[in-house]
């Protein structure tokens, strides 16, 4: 019998991205029994990812600097929604070492290398 593939620490995952990669991450999380919280801009209210995520939180207007790159807004959502981990996808904050460090400092799991190796 194959061994079950289950997440132990990550019960709720914040997806900090949009478009096809947000959809891709939500699919993987769902198969592993984790809930997803998607942060999005007002331009993406009707996105496929918004329809698929367990919860959605609008964090700002369309420009990425005020939404998908807004570290304080994303971290506040992570705390309010009591997520265990943050997946940054690609682009946006995926290789921002400062973001990774702040996620870890908030006691959350950053789905990527530790803040030190991505610097």
């Amino acid at each position, binding site marked *: 019998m194959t061994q079950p*593939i289950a*997440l132990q620490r990550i019960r709720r995952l914040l997806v900090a991205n949009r478009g*096809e990669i947000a959809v891709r991450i939500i699919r*993987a999380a769902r198969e592993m029994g984790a809930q997803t919280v998607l942060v999005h801009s007002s331009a993406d209210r009707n996105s*496929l990812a918004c329809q698929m995520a367990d919860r959605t939180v609008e964090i700002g207007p369309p420009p990425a600097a005020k939404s998908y790159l807004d570290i304080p807004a994303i971290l506040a959502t992570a705390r309010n929604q009591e997520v265990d981990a943050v997946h940054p996808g690609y682009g946006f904050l995926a290789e921002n070492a400062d973001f990774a460090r702040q996620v870890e400092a908030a006691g959350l799991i950053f789905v990527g*290398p530790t803040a030190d190796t991505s610097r």
Partner: protein
Amino acid sequence: MGDKARARAMAQAVGVATVPGSAGALADVVQAMGMAKEIGYPLMIKAVAGGGGRGIRVVEHAEALHAAFAAAQREALAAFGDGHLYLERFMPQARHLEVQILGDGQRVIHCYERECSLQRRRQKIMEEAPSPALDDAQRHRLCQAAVRLAQSVAYRGAGTVEFLFDQDEFHFIEMNTRIQVEHPVTEMVTGLDLVREMLLIADGQPLRWQQQDIRLRGAAIECRINAEDPQRNFLPTPGSIEQLQLPGGPGVRVDSMLYPGCVIPPYYDSMLAKLTVWDEDRKRALSRMRRALDELHISGVAHTKSLHQALLADTDVCAARYHTRFLEHWLAHWPGSTADTVADPLARDTGRTA
């Protein structure tokens, strides 16, 4: 590893060749002039904090270096908040290969390579796995180099080690510490779900696989369908999707956020869908991709399906005779595009074949 100059130094420390260039960030233009003499021309000025093809300038000869360095410094400061620069040899005929790795902080394995040489303005357009340019011995050397580098930093997570490959030699460029757009081609040829593995590693679980468990089977190709108009110099075409028919059948995968009526906002990148196919070998995969593209219908916004159809009908693309400058040169002769003539002064010297 995000700091490019630091990553180069770490690669050299574990015996992984890098593109000839300055060992780290340069103090000033005087140091750059001296270093450029050693590296030779043509060369590239790159921003230490740059990435995704941004912050790069090609310099053809010594007389042009001074002005280019000053301009690059201003640009880097404005774009990345960091004006540090380094120099690298420019290899116009090289291929872009990258190795997918997975590490759990203790062990690192590789999931073979992707070939990503077909690029426009340093943005990848079509990718495949495995690389048709490598024999088994070269593949082994490349993948081992990537593993050595990741092991030296006790890498944890999914990552990609990028190389330029030219005349039987590969040179490390940079390491990306994220899941990449083109990860589906690796998933198709290995049967892995890389995002699942990423989540398991982040969850604190050890790697589930030994290196010998990762098998390369068949060939996969990915076409990025972008909301850009080839007839108008690839201008982004945000708008509403009207009709949508996605291809299916054996060995066909679509990664997309499209549905009929959905809106493509103008604020973000222009990718609409990644169409990926797998088949027993490259020749069959090419033909399956042609079939899948024929089935794909997206109306409402102009997009780049016709570019992919034309590329898949090209003799050089089908024979995998290409390099990183191939596509921009090819586009200048493609009637389906009104792309400006290639801005790169070196383009006229680069042949169509690798």
